[in-house]
């Protein structure tokens, strides 16, 4: 019951908040103190994208117990797919005024478009790629990982290795994705100039909607029988096997879906920040995103959204106010949350789950019981 209220609250906050901001930006004249300046809209849009990423992570970490340290990889891949479309949109307006080749290709002396850039001039194709590419990668990766029963920390470590490898790969100029500068100087999306405030606001609203939809999707999955099996797998994987379920296939499904959600978040992120480059693959990003979820409270979905918002608010404020403190803050956050807030902020208000600690304890006693019974 409470859970449902929380979810309705989340939705209304996300959608309502976004709508209000948009209105105060577009309708209220700039002179009035109530006017919301554009940069706020931009930031809000950014946060909403992060929230989508956080949601994706909570889906796998909170409900399938897969601690991913590489989800930013899917986020970034989605971003690149969108970035490629935006590059093509620039057309001849680039510095080198080359109708087909993006500037960076001209710059490194390429003469024609590599095959994998074909089709990105069409928006629908780019959208498809946003879903297909990260989805496929996630599926293949997960298929290997889960089938060979890699789990726990080792899974985490190889997800990190995955994003690390991708980062190194995208840093290479001859990959044809702009090397370490990545892609930028976008002009417009579907003909709407990106620098116009109405476009910014529109994108922000779209992001809010997408976030809400992915939230509902995630929620539907969790509350279906599928979701119950997933939680069962998280709590006692061997037991589900003896019930006749194949945990690997459940993990694979949720893993792939989650990757796709993250990718969509990335796709929305790029037009709003106006740049995508390999640093988005940095392992640090993925882990930071995990801490958003931890702060909000894993396994609640709305906690993930809340966490993403709060931590990034803090980040924006700190990095401008006292930059050198930021790393101390985020680092400290990791430690404090894992030690003292195993269930995050939302955990302080709900009494849904036994705290992780006690779950460990019971696990411990079960272990010792096994010994005792020997």
């Amino acid at each position: 019951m409470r859970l449902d209220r929380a979810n309705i609250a989340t939705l209304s906050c996300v959608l309502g908040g976004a709508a209000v901001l948009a209105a105060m930006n577009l309708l209220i004249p700039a002179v009035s103190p109530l006017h919301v300046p554009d940069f706020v809209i931009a930031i809000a849009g950014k946060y909403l994208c992060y929230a989508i990423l956080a949601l994706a992570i909570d889906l796998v970490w909170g409900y399938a117990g897969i601690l991913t340290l590489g989800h930013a990889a899917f986020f970034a891949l989605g971003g690149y797919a969108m970035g490629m479309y935006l590059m093509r949109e620039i057309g001849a307006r680039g510095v080198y005024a080359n109708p087909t080749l993006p500037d960076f290709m001209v710059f490194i002396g390429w003469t024609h478009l590599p095959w994998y850039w074909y089709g990105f001039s069409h928006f629908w194709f780019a959208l498809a790629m946003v879903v297909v590419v990260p989805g496929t990668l996630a599926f293949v990766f997960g298929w290997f990982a889960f089938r060979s029963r890699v789990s726990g920390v080792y899974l985490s470590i190889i997800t990190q290795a995955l994003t690390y490898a991708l980062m190194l790969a995208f840093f290479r100029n001859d990959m044809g994705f702009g090397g370490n500068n990545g892609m930028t100087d976008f002009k417009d999306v579907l003909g709407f100039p990106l620098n116009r405030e109405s476009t910014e606001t529109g994108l922000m609203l779209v992001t809010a909607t997408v976030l809400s939809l992915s939230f509902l999707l995630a929620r539907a999955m969790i509350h279906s029988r599928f979701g119950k099996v997933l939680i069962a797998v998280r709590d006692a994987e061997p037991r589900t096997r003896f019930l006749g379920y194949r945990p690997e296939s459940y993990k694979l499904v949720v893993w792939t879906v989650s990757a796709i959600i993250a990718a969509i978040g990335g796709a929305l992120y790029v037009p709003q920040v106006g740049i995508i480059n390999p640093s988005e693959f940095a392992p640090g990003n993925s882990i930071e995103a995990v801490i958003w979820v931890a702060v909000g409270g894993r396994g609640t979905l709305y906690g993930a959204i809340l966490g993403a918002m709060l931590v990034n608010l803090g980040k924006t404020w700190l990095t401008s106010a006292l930059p050198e403190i930021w790393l101390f803050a985020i680092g400290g956050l990791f430690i404090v949350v894992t030690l003292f807030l195993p269930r995050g902020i939302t955990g302080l208000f709900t009494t849904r789950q036994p705290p992780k600690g006690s779950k460990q304890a019971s696990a411990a006693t079960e272990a010792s019981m096994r010994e005792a019974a020997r």
Partner: protein
Amino acid sequence: MSEPTLLYLDGVTVSFDGFKALNELSMVLEPGEMRAVIGPNGAGKTTMMDVITGKTRPDQGRIVFGADIDLTKLDEPAIARLGIGRKFQQPTVFETLTVRDNLLLALAGDRSPRFTLWARESADEHAQLDRLLATIRLVQERDRRAAELSHGQKQWLEIGMLLAQDPKLLLIDEPAAGMTDAETAETAELLREINRTRSVVVIDHDMAFVRALGVKITVLDEGCVLAEGSIDAIQDNPHVIEVYLGR
């Protein structure tokens, strides 16, 4: 085999780095039978469960289920789907799910994500769940999370989950461990009830409990069968007495 058997272990051997947990173990279980398995520490009781359910692969020997299915070729989920349910020593239920959901997941049916993603609870399932809840005496607790149950209740819930799988054979490991006398008596009752419709193998140390079951007993020692028979026969068997009293 003159008559059809349900489960047939044929010279099964399992060794962990040299030490033989099971040594040429052979055993036959008739359909509809309930069997109690006892034996001192390290006799291989739990290992026997592991090889039947596919958790451990035997080094030698066959395990035939029903007419001609060799279990040693299958993995846990496949064996579970054949209708062999297992209850662990320490109760492992899904702590964060409600009692009802625990049973729901156990109900026989399609186990694939494709199905469970869209599955809606059918009236038939609804009825089955109510019946199960009644059987395992947890009607009141139906919507509580399993973590909040008492030890004995968890044991029953797990047995209920086995029943929900509608197995032909139940393997039950120390159901009475750590239960109060009252709970133990009820558990014995519950198992007999279950045995009316299915075959059961029970492992336990608690002789009061085994006696209460009143069924054929197999005594394991050092990985093979030491004696088999009624409780009285077992109690007078000199080997058994030696194993239990002196060496």
